[in-house]
């Protein structure tokens, strides 16, 4: 008989608990029921403001579709728990459901504190915590011009970004004399203020609001204690959080004097079978308003349920984030509350950078730090603090620019194995080493195995250095040499080909390689020659470089025959063309199937027949589908606005345009695209290297998705684009990928290994931070201009067509190609069938 586990609350921490639980052995001991007060499953509150810069509620969701169902977790949304009877071990919900439990987990979170100001409940006076709050903000913004955030802390500034994104003239009102008073000192706060004010946000500090009343020029007038006032249409309270502890209070659990459910190191409340985790819990007199400590508590409860020793002993509140585009970080105690503490300050006015170190009286240990405008030192400093490491002789070297001298670097080896590198997923250096011992051979593998770097991404640099150092120790070639013949990576070879103008393999090998090449470097160089010069695969000197698929312009099947896949742009095909395909398949007895990319495949074509088959297809208006090449495969589309009742835009036309523009462009690996005409996403565009989805305002662009072995949801890259901008970004994206990716690296892996990740990619493609945007577009245009159908060239040239034979010296069939009829078509005979002579030979 399974025990009953009830979870109250389905926020970030509540979900993290379930996610960790299902992956532990104790999960099989319990039937799990979850109650959530909100109408939707857990979503990312940390990046809430991205809702206004293009993300949807679905994008923000933390729960993979079907996660609860697949794991047999009973989730009840819109169902608020209103009472706990801890003696009877039961709960009751607002709709009257009663349920007993063996274990209860409270993850009720917190609510936004609204200061007790007269008028705080007027129209368009809002808070910022849930998606419903966002919707209310959106609605209020439609009838407003000015918005004020009350509270200049971390959340307040996030909320201010939301108001800016909604197009409101934005003000921030802070009670303290500076922004982010908890995390920053005066110097750091004033630098932050300067940078934010540049963005057009007005900051008012040392302001205490007395009353909110009718405005004269706007909806409200806020009157401050100093007699000044401010008129605004929307007011957003973001003045801190308070634990949602009313349930626990009613149940008689021990509470803190100022609220919060008291927990011990195992996260148990005063009733041992009831746990509390996240922002509702009070541990050692502290409420932790960050998500990482909440995740740590969730892990402790899971360990406890698994009878493993684990303890939550407090959490580091260091934080690094981007507020309105400004990098800010705070470590430990940045105020130097210890009187004997000493500090170092570096300020760079022109570049708007501020850094401060607080060190112990003897100068040996780091106590705290503030970084504004440049947070590259965060990783190093955090490790110094967390591991209580000794400071170098001149601690200020740590924050001075590298050019001022040699910056002391903490080699990854100086970190203990227990050092936590990724705080979002609590990944230690030891865990990274374990992943490498278990077979991870690059950063992307380590990310997949440990989830490190996949939360805020702040630890990427540090984790990369640990991964590289550990791989080097194991003698794994961190060198990216493509194979034994070239001491260069694919990216380096690309540049050598381009810069030195190599037009063939022999010239490149002579200049930079040794030996004869192999099946690794030859196709890679062929692809590079194709990308740089649009070199035709079938040129005689290129033939030896090609994988058989490229050499014979078809995909070789297990029996040595080939598949024929004509391009069907966007999946749109006329009945006449369908008839031709059917007739050709019938005449050559080809097995016919529709593949996953909305195309029709004819299987079993023999080498000598291929030119004749293609001649008939080309005469009917088809062209090569390049299904054999590392190039664009298909652009999948839904039917779009021309037919669909829900379509916003013409997705079929967009798919055809995309396919025709990028067809034939050789890339490091195959590329797939998808276009959906609305957010119902019937084309599954988010599983493609490039996905395009129509919205009311234009096209949203997604990049680096993948189906296949390691599925990956694409990242939303840019929103509401017009067609010209969309193509501009895709041109740049593809060319940048072609130039910088490794051999056979799909866009998803490429992004995983790209330092700086999606943000960096946006800078390069959208903001043109490298100044190469125009160049990339021109290169793409030149490839587009020189496109030729591979098969057209074979059909037009008898010398080329002559190379398709079974034997150079005989016009005979391949005796191994034998077929069996199944479901009305032919398929290759198995070895057993050949032995038993059950096979029929093709006529």
């Amino acid at each position: 008989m399974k025990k009953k586990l009830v979870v109250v609350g389905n926020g970030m921490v509540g979900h993290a608990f379930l996610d960790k639980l299902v992956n532990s052995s104790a999960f099989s001991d319990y039937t799990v029921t979850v109650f959530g007060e909100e109408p939707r499953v857990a979503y990312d509150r940390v990046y809430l403001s991205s809702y206004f810069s293009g993300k949807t509620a679905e994008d923000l969701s933390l729960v993979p579709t079907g996660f609860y169902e697949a794991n047999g977790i009973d989730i009840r949304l819109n169902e608020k728990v209103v009472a706990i009877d801890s003696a009877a071990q039961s709960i009751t919900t607002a709709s009257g459901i009663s349920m007993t439990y063996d274990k209860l987990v409270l993850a009720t979170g917190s609510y936004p504190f609204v200061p007790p100001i007269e008028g705080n409940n007027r129209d368009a006076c809002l808070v910022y915590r849930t998606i419903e709050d966002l919707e209310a903000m959106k609605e209020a913004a439609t009838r407003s011009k000015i918005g004020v955030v009350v509270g200049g802390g971390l959340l307040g500034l996030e909320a201010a970004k939301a108001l800016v994104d909604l197009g409101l003239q934005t003000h921030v009102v802070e009670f303290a004399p500076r922004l982010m008073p908890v995390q920053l000192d005066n110097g750091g706060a004033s630098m932050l203020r300067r940078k934010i004010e540049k963005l057009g946000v007005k900051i008012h500090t040392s302001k205490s609001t007395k009353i909110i009343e009718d405005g004269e020029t706007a909806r409200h007038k806020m009157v401050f204690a100093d007699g000044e006032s401010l008129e605004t249409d929307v007011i957003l309270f973001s003045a801190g959080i308070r634990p949602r502890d009313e349930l626990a209070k009613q149940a008689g659990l021990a509470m803190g004097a100022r609220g919060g459910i008291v927990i011990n190191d195992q996260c148990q409340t005063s009733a041992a079978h009831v746990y509390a985790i996240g922002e509702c819990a009070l541990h050692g007199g502290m409420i932790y308003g960050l998500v990482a400590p909440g995740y740590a508590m969730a892990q402790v409860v899971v360990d406890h349920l698994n009878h493993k020793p684990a303890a939550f002993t407090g959490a580091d509140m260091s934080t690094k984030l981007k507020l309105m585009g400004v990098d800010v970080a705070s470590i430990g105690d940045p105020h130097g509350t210890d009187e004997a503490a000493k500090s170092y300050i570096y300020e760079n006015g022109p570049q708007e950078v501020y850094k401060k170190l607080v060190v112990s009286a003897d100068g040996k240990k780091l106590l705290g730090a503030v970084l504004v405008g440049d947070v590259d030192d965060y990783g190093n400093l955090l490790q110094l603090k967390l591991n209580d490491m000794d400071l170098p002789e001149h601690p200020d070297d740590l924050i001075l620019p590298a050019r001022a001298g040699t910056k002391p670097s903490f080699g990854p080896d100086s970190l203990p194995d227990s050092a936590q590198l990724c705080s979002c997923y609590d990944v230690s250096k030891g865990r990274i080493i374990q992943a490498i011992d278990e077979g991870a051979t690059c950063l992307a593998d380590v990310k997949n195995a440990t989830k490190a770097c996949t939360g805020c991404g702040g630890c990427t640099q540090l984790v990369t250095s640990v991964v590289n150092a550990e791989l080097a120790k194991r003698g794994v070639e961190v060198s990216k040499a493509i194979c034994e013949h070239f001491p260069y990576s694919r990216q380096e070879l690309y540049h050598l080909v381009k810069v030195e103008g190599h037009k063939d393999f022999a010239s490149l090998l002579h200049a930079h390689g040794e030996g004869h090449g192999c099946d690794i470097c030859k196709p890679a160089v062929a692809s590079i020659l194709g990308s740089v010069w649009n070199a035709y695969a079938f040129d005689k000197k290129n033939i030896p470089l090609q994988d058989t698929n490229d050499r014979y312009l078809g995909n070789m099947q297990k029996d040595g025959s080939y598949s024929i896949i004509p391009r069907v742009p966007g999946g749109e095909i006329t009945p006449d063309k369908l008839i031709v395909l059917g007739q050709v398949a019938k005449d050559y007895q080809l097995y016919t199937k529709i593949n996953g990319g909305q195309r029709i495949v004819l299987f079993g074509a023999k080498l000598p027949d291929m030119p004749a088959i293609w001649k008939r297809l080309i005469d009917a208006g088809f062209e090569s589908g390049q299904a054999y090449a590392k190039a664009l495969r298909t652009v999948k589309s839904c039917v779009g606005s021309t037919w669909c009742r829900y379509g916003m835009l013409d997705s079929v036309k967009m798919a055809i345009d995309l396919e025709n523009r990028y067809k034939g462009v050789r890339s490091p690996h195959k590329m797939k695209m998808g276009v959906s005409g609305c957010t119902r996403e019937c084309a599954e565009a988010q599983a493609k290297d490039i996905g395009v989805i129509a919205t009311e305002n234009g096209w949203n662009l997604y990049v680096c998705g993948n189906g296949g072995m390691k599925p990956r949801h694409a990242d939303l890259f840019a929103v509401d684009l017009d067609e010209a901008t969309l193509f501009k970004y895709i041109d740049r994206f593809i060319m940048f990928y072609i130039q910088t990716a490794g051999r056979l690296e799909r866009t998803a892996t490429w992004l995983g290994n790209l330092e700086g990740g999606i943000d960096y990619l946006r800078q390069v493609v959208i903001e043109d931070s490298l100044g190469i945007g125009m160049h990339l577009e021109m290169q793409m245009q030149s490839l587009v201009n020189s496109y030729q159908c591979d098969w057209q060239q074979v059909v037009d040239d008898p010398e080329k067509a002559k190379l398709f034979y079974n034997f150079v010296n005989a016009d005979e069939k391949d005796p191994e190609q034998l077929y069996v009829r199944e479901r009305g078509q032919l398929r290759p005979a198995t070895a057993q069938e050949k032995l038993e002579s059950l096979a029929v030979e093709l006529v």
Partner: protein
Amino acid sequence: MSEWVKICAVSDLIADAGVPALFKDQAIALFYVNDQVYALSNYDPIGQANVMSRGIVGSIKGELVVASPLYKEHYSLSTGKCLEKPEVALTVYSVKVEGGDVWVS
């Protein structure tokens, strides 16, 4: 000593690549590398199809090899041995070039 059979002209071969041919009733693959012709069985013993002539020719630690186009095992052009699975090998045929023609026995 088995008899020599004329297969084709050297000009029918492709430098640094393979070409399929029929020797008596056997499918063979001719490779033309460094002005020398190698003849091996065209049958891929692992993939079980006549495809070796379509593999990529190269070198591994100095030894000339052809990679199976199906599952990428490497076979020595001179001995026929599979580098990854020493128990598997391609049959090697004798070759000579005379008067611009390729002969196999």
